[in-house]
């Protein structure tokens, strides 16, 4: 049986040894079961979430995102190798979209992350987005908590950077690495959708190809439009040959140094709350008939915008009062 971490006693479950105890020791089977429970939802998910409560975190969570074809899996593979050379244990969540029609998915990303199956210090899990269960914003933070509780030094979160849900996922990482590469057509188009805003480190992969400099200049020009004081570094990398991985790892380390890993679970809970609250508020406002009435009132000049916003949010916050005129 494959065991994560250095604890090779975990494979032999002693009598009275609970599944959660095994999870805490990094037993791969128990970790895998807990991840499935979270994904599926239901009573087992509630039990696992309950057991995770009040545990301090220790893992560093790095998110990798970028458009299809940019070489994310290859870069993640190189990053895993780098972490393993420092004897750090790694867990990877590789997120692929489910089919919006059937809900099914073919999860092939991990096969491009090299062959780590014989290394007990690497745990990789493919995650389908399962849109019908309310989105990844609910399951991903708890899955990260599971891996954190299992004692992994580092957790890598990999997602296709093509849509809003991936932007949401990136908020759960302590450090977000956004990838681009030359030759993907319109680079700028591929990387907008707000995702640049969340980048802590920007990587230009396939930097040995023609056009890499242009891609870098594009990114730097876009960064100048951000209204933040500091800009993330833009680093050239050739993931296939491992070039530039050292510098990327250093940039990730520097970003982590400013954060307290023990607060990871709490930060993830806050972020999940923020996203869930926004989603609920959005849903209520969209369903409120008062929206159109207030819009018409603004148009007529009967009310100013700020007052209308206040009124709408008050109604959303106290939905019971809606029926009372």
């Amino acid at each position, binding site marked *: 049986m494959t065991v994560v971490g250095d604890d090779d006693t975990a494979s032999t479950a002693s009598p009275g040894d609970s599944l959660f105890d095994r999870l805490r020791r990094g037993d791969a089977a128990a970790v895998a079961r807990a991840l499935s429970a979270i994904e599926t939802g239901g009573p087992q998910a509630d039990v696992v979430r309950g057991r995770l409560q009040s545990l301090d975190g220790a893992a560093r969570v790095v998110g990798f995102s970028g458009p299809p*074809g940019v070489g994310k899996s290859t870069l993640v593979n190189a990053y895993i190798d780098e972490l393993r050379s420092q004897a750090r244990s790694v867990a990877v969540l590789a997120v692929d979209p489910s089919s919006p029609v059937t809900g099914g998915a*073919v999860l*092939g990303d991990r*096969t*491009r992350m090299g062959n780590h199956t014989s290394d007990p210090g690497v745990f990789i899990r493919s995650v389908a987005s399962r849109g019908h269960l309310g989105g990844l914003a609910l399951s991903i933070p708890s899955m990260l908590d599971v891996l954190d509780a299992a004692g992994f030094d580092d957790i890598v979160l990999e997602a296709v950077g093509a849509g809003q849900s991936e932007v949401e996922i990136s908020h759960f990482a302590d450090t977000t690495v956004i990838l681009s590469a030359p030759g993907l057509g319109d680079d700028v188009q591929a990387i907008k959708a707000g995702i640049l805003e969340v980048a802590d480190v920007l990587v230009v992969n396939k930097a040995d190809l023609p056009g890499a400099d242009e891609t870098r200049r594009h990114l730097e020009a876009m960064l100048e439009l951000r209204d933040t004081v500091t800009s993330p570094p833009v680093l050239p990398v050739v993931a296939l040959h491992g070039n530039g991985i050292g510098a990327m790892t250093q940039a990730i380390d520097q970003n982590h140094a400013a954060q307290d890993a023990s607060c990871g679970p709490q930060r993830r809970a806050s972020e999940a709350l923020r996203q869930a609250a926004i989603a609920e508020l959005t849903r209520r406002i969209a369903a409120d008939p008062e929206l159109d009435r207030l819009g018409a009132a603004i148009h007529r000049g009967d009310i100013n915008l700020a007052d209308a916003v206040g009124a709408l949010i008050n109604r959303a916050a106290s939905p019971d009062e809606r029926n009372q005129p």
Partner: protein
Amino acid sequence: MTAVESTQLALPGFDAAKQRWEDAYTRQLPADSDVKRNRSGIEIKPLYGPDDWDGTTYLDTLGFPGEAPYTRGIYPTMYRGRTWTQRQLIGLGTPEDYNERIRFLIDNGSTAISLLPCNSGFRGLDCDEVPFPLLGTCGTVVNSVDHMDQALAGVDLASISTAMNDPTPFTLLAYVLGVAKRRGVPFDKVTGTSNQSDYISHYVANHMFYRLSQPGSRRLLVDHVEYCREVVPNWNPVSVVGQHMQQAGATPAETMGFTLSTAIQYAEDCMARGMDPDEILPRFTFFFDVSISLFEEVAKFRAGRRIWARIARERLGAKDPRSWRFKFHGQTSGVDLTAQQPLNNIARVAVQAVGGILSGLQSMHTDAYDEAITCPTEETARIAVATQNILREEAHLCDVIDPLGGSYYVEALTDQMEEEILAVMATVDAAGGMYEAVGSGLVQRMIGQSALAAQNRIDRGEEKIVGVNCFQTDDDGVPPPPMRPDADAMRKHVHDFIVFKEARSQADVDRALGQLRRAAQGDTNVFEQVVEAALVGVTHGEIVAALRDELGFGDPLVVA
């Protein structure tokens, strides 16, 4: 081609007669009759006539056999002069088992031989480093010059052509040359073909033969062509394989398009090394599946010949007509064979073989009827060879050259297939050529979609397969017992191999492997060092391992 306007026809009364037939046809046709399409998606009409093909472009598009554009055949005499080569693909058990089988087949009419190595060899491994139960179940275990010597015992290398299923780095040819040297046969007398030299097809469609990274394979193929041109001039170093893509699900038109695009890639790679097209193209050969979609296959090959002649001359700049000839080996398609009611496959193979002969192929393998289940037994292999003998000797298929030429249907279909093929090639060109197009997964995705579409047609019953989705029987008859190598003989073979490795000069092996690695690191000919290593006893697994170390293994793209 655009249909001929009937008003141009010098056939008074044609339009009225056609109208009468159309009316009768429409009236009498069952209401639930479907539109027919061939596997390449071309709509097939119920009748073709002079308004579809009138022969006015005869000299440009057809011409005569042995003359460009070779649509009707690449030689003036075709089967009147010499019938196709019967080359049965054989591989099983130990080299002694193989030798026994090929001598049997030569006695039964085979005129050339082909060697399929064990799957462990395709993976680049020697017999002493793999799970024993898998050894020799699908091919012959050949890991050294000694093994090749046993396999080819009693075979005159100066007179019998040998096709080796030998992906990069071409160790089997190196071992053949080792045997030739032992027997005093000059290298320029050795004839045959490096089948499976087409690394792109392995990356795309048949991962079984995939052995070295794409950049490494790309370089080794050019090294191999360069070496053979100088040292083994009667050997065909390049066999471009359409078979894998068609078996993986590409339509016949896609298959021909991808294959010709691949041939262009290889030719241009060699030319970039400074080789003259007329020095290399006469030794290019092609290898295809022949499916049971008979007319479509005939049209595929006739169109392919015509396109290649034009490409070789106009795009690649070849001036020697021998460079323009599209020489191909056809293998009856195993994909059409069924495990249900296996004896039915004898009929299928016969129809496929007729299609291949009517297409004007240069050499042919006919599948044994148990090919869908296992490696052929001696009896099933004999029937496969007999099928070719019957078609050649009894069916009068060899009397007339290109006997379907001039058929309204076949000529119109040949033109339409040509259009489809050219469209596929244009897609590949737009992606930067075949090497780039497979690197990005474009070709794999196209093949995957075609495979899924074909399966859906079968599942929906639109494509009928006897014994599978119609005319099923509860009892499919007793299947032939699978061929499995004799375990004791195989154990002895592995044991002898280990003894051989211990007895050879380790200093020679180390020196040869060092030279091989240095060649790979630098820019001298790597294949030359493969041959040198083979001659001093370096094994197949050792050669492939050293080159994987230097040139990389890579991973074939998975596009599900």
